[in-house]
């Protein structure tokens, strides 16, 4: 079965940890992930500027490793990312900001990418709230 995973909460929310564990289970069970889409506070997971205390799980880092290892299509909504300060090289240049903090493995794009993924998939599971 083909899944879209929709991440709506920040990496500090338990929902984002559950999203990762669910996504790992999807692949482990032999299913396919068409796209992971990061929207609302979910875009913060794609920042490589997060610093997590040593005695806590770094869920953003785990997400990035999972995406990279499995070569997943990970799209971060560009409008939601800009207003939360997650920028890639092109956007930092466009808006004359010093920090480029979109982690490797992610790409900024529009909400059309969410709808495009839905059209290809069988299931979309959203993780938001706490």
């Amino acid at each position, binding site marked *: 079965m083909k899944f879209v995973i929709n991440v709506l909460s920040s990496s500090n929310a338990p929902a984002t940890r559950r999203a990762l564990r669910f996504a790992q289970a999807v692949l482990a069970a032999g299913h396919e992930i068409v796209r992971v889409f990061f929207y609302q506070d979910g875009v913060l997971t794609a920042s490589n500027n997060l610093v997590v205390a040593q005695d806590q799980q770094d869920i953003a880092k785990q997400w990035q490793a999972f995406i990279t290892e499995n070569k997943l299509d990970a799209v971060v909504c560009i409008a939601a990312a800009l207003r939360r300060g997650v920028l890639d090289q092109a956007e930092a240049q466009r808006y004359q900001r010093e920090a480029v903090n979109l982690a490797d493995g992610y790409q900024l794009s529009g909400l059309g990418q969410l709808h495009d993924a839905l059209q290809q998939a069988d299931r979309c599971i*959203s993780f938001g709230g706490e």
Partner: protein
Amino acid sequence: MAKSVLLISRQAPWAGIGAAEALDIALAAGAFDLPLSILFMDDGVLQLLDQQQPQALEQKDLSANLQALPMFGIEQLYVAQHCLTVRGLADNPLALTAERVDDQRIQQLIRQHDYVMTL
């Protein structure tokens, strides 16, 4: 045939960017000519109230985005009647034409659509 989305919008209009971001999902579907319905539930029903004054909160008017929905081809709009009722708004006029639905009809809507997305 294109797969359909039921977007359940639960955020109050002036409680942050949430309601506007939910609406953007709908407008994007409209821009790509994809079938999407919106169900306003919980505090989301407050988005539909007439004559809001966002200027008092130094906010941008969300109702302009809502009014744009039909122009984007998003015309299936529903509002949970019990959510209006518990907020004392049972008979209030709405700023947008939305079908008032009971719990049974909500179950039906959830079954009818390929995807349900709650924001």
